[in-house]
């Protein structure tokens, strides 16, 4: 089945998310839709899938104009979608998930025909080598397995066009490779695949055609043989350097010492952080790599004191941080960039001015004799917005109205405005566009060169390699090993799945 989008336009109020987009997807091809976050890729696919109504343009299936009023229509027409956030009910079994929405019933009472669904799961699972148990509960499955359930769901409805929305965002490198292999199999069996992504490596590995979208418009097509730099500059609209320019680190004395740190979840009794010890020297970047949910978040929060620790200690320049209030930890010279910036990083309903002094509001010169000094605050905001290149109409704008990249710059500006000894940055560039990533990375390296000890937590291997002087890999709450950044991706990927590196690389 050939799918064509012609002049698709979608507006949200004054904002044009999709501006007259054309796209042709042919059977047996992988078509990559490349663009930064917020470029309008997902909006386009949601229009195609019937979740949004388009304001203009039309969808053609094999040359016939078609209108999808809801996702059911799209699925009936042979379009399947694997969403970035899985559309699976956590308490359902795989078989139940498969049948939801187009249930097969049997008998006079018209009860669910679960056996048929089980057989279907087994059949598809065997055909593609998925190893999925039809009676497994979704929430017990690994993320990769859940994604395979989503693919089975789409295939069970005879999807001729399969849309994968940022499918690798949550996968380990190995799972990513497996997924790309599956995509190849699907293509060879005649399915048209639309791969929505901002990851150039995947595009180059699997795509047949590439369409690049920027700010809601198609800015061009590219070939998989183009270099990563070419693709990136098409995506961003200017030339970008993929590597972070940095001098070799000149580490000083040990600044941060983490010794036997453990965190146990009070409610479930699960050990989230298991006897973690390491040293971080002034002027070096230690990147913590690992698949999401292996204790990295808890490590960062435990150092700051946000999470209660059950054993172990954290010392910074000989001062013990464990057991102190967060306020006094911050005062000891710790900067913290939280992983969920909209939730923990900024107060979305505050202006940029106020977000910039969230941790400084009670000090001179920002406040005097218990009252804030508006003119000083404004001056501070003007300087910071300039220094950190925050793109905003005004410093009085609400921080929530900024793009993700600019919000992150506000967070960074605030955290770096104190004299730091230690900077903890959790997923510092998650969801940011390439331009902002470049900027954030540059500032982090600048801090390192000033002699600050930097702990970066990231599940993006590209980021880990770009920043790290040493890499600590976490798995199941433990540090598997600390290795040098010239360790290859495959080895790192295996370590992220729990395999130990035999050799101690320091």
């Amino acid at each position, binding site marked *: 089945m050939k799918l064509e989008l012609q002049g698709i336009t979608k507006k949200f109020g004054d904002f044009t998310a999709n501006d007259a987009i054309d796209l042709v997807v042919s059977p047996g091809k992988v078509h990559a839709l490349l663009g930064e976050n917020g470029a309008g890729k997902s909006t386009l696919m949601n229009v195609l899938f019937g979740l949004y109504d388009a304001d203009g343009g039309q969808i053609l299936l094999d040359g016939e104009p078609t209108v999808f009023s809801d996702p059911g229509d799209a699925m009936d027409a042979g379009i399947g979608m694997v969403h970035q956030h899985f559309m699976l009910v956590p308490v359902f079994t795989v078989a139940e998930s498969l049948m939801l929405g187009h249930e097969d019933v049997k008998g006079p009472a018209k009860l669910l025909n679960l056996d048929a669904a089980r057989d279907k799961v087994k059949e598809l699972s065997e055909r593609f080598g998925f190893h999925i148990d039809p009676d497994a509960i979704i929430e017990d499955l*690994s993320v990769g397995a859940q994604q395979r359930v989503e693919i089975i769901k789409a295939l069970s409805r005879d999807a001729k066009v399969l849309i994968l929305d940022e499918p690798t965002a949550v996968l380990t490198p190995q799972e990513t490779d497996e997924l790309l292999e599956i995509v190849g199999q699907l293509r060879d069996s005649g399915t048209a695949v639309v791969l929505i992504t901002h990851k150039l490596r995947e595009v180059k590995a699997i795509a047949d055609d590439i369409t690049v979208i920027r700010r809601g418009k198609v800015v061009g097509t590219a070939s998989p043989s183009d270099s990563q730099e070419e693709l990136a500059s098409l995506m961003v609209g200017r030339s970008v350097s993929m590597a972070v320019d940095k001098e070799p680190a000149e580490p000083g004395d040990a600044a941060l010492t983490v010794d036997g740190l453990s965190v146990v979840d009070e409610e479930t*009794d699960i050990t989230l952080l298991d006897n973690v010890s390491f040293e971080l020297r002034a002027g070096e970047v230690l990147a913590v790599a690992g698949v999401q949910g292996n204790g990295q978040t808890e490590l960062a929060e435990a150092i700051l004191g946000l999470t209660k620790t059950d054993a172990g200690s954290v010392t910074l320049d000989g001062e013990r941080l464990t057991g102190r209030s967060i306020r006094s930890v911050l005062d000891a010279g710790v900067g913290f960039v939280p992983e969920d910036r909209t939730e923990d990083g900024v107060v979305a309903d505050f202006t940029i001015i106020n977000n910039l002094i969230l941790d400084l509001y009670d000090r001179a010169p920002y406040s005097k004799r218990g009252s804030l000094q508006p003119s000083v605050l404004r001056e501070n905001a003007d300087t910071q917005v300039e220094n950190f290149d925050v793109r905003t109409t005004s410093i009085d704008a609400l921080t929530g109205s900024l793009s993700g990249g600019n919000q992150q710059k506000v967070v960074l500006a605030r955290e770096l405005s104190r004299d730091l000894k230690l900077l903890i940055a959790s997923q510092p560039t998650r969801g940011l566009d390439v331009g902002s990533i470049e900027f954030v990375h540059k500032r982090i390296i600048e801090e390192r060169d000033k002699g600050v000890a930097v702990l970066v937590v990231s599940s993006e291997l590209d980021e880990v390699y770009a920043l790290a002087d040493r890499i600590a890999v976490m798995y199941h709450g433990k540090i598997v090993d600390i290795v040098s950044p010239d360790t290859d991706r495959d080895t790192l990927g295996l370590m992220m799945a729990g395999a130990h590196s035999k050799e101690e690389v320091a």
Partner: protein
Amino acid sequence: MSAPVVEPDALAHPESGEGRKRPRSYKGPIALGVIALVALVGLGFFTSSDTETTFSFAKNSDFFTIPDLTVPSLMAVIVLTVIALLLAVYSLVLATNHRKPGIWLPVVYGIAIIGALLTTAGAGRDNTSIQFTSLLTSSLFLAVPLVFGALAGTICERSGIVNIAIEGQLLAGAFLAALVGSMAGNAYIGMVVAPLAGAAVGAILAVFATKYWVDQIVVGVVLNLLVLGLTGFFFNTVMSDNPNLNQSLNMQSIDIPVLSSIPIIGPVLFQQNLLVYILYVTVIVTQIMLFKSRWGLRVRAVGEHPKAADTVGIKVNRTRLRNTILGGAVAGLGGAFFTVASGLAFGNNMSAGKGYIALAAMILGRWSPRGALVAALLFGFADALRVQLGIIGSDIPSEFLAMTPYLATILAVAGLVGHSRAPAAENIPYKK
């Protein structure tokens, strides 16, 4: 550098691993132990050593007669509470080994404690015995509005709408059943229209929850007060001016042939009125429909992950609207219990908080019709016990007994009966 050593197990099941044992939970065992100790000391103190307690099980209609059981009171109390204490210790041992007891333990434990309580209550009354069968019969009867209410809650909450308005739906059902039944002079007609009143209250809740995204708990509470006010107003004006609009009607109890003659079970289950038989059917049908039918699968999907349901073409808000109205209707039917099915005229605030207890039964029953039935029966039993002990004039103050269902509710809701998880999307409006 050398090749990494791969642990095959870790790669095959990246989600499994050490540190994932069943968490130790001492809440349950401690609660069991404390209650057993209190029972041992308290009941032992109330029971004198030279008395006997008689239990009678028989009814005239039985095939054969089970003889009365007479036991020495103090001895029986001590034996039963010590059994309960041992069970508490056993569950503590299991907990330290990260294990959970089977369902038999709380059941046997409950029987032991209640047995001890009954023994104390019936001690030293030569002419009055504990009427065990009629105790169970009235337990079931008193549980009727709770079961309907808990089913209503389950039907709504499984689709993601919190139904605090059960209380109001019960009351509205009771009112309309009495009014229409009196006008028609027929209790059954009253029962048939009762669901309409509940459905109307449910519809208001549903519209506010799905169209205007108002907090469902707030709307529910407001609706309860609204129904209380409205029915009270009509009771004091129209009904008191025209007594023939609010008569005591009666629904005959219907004996099922053969089944009703089985000792104990027969009189309890099969000598009831029509509403109770409807209850059996409703519980069974809802249980099957919710977990085995297309409707149930979709409802549960909407209550757990509405967006996922939407992406497969299920209309989330329409499903919620329908379920809330359906749930309201079920609660309205339960409301008929208070008036036409009990042979009573309507009275102000007749539901008297039963709707909230029903909500607790729903939670205790873990949002399943079967569980709701069991939980509601437990509450019904506590209520029936209070009534019977009042009749035989027990030494135990009836105020304490009146409190037991509520105490049980608090313990239940506090999660002492194990982890129960509400539908994930409950009380979260679905906005597209």
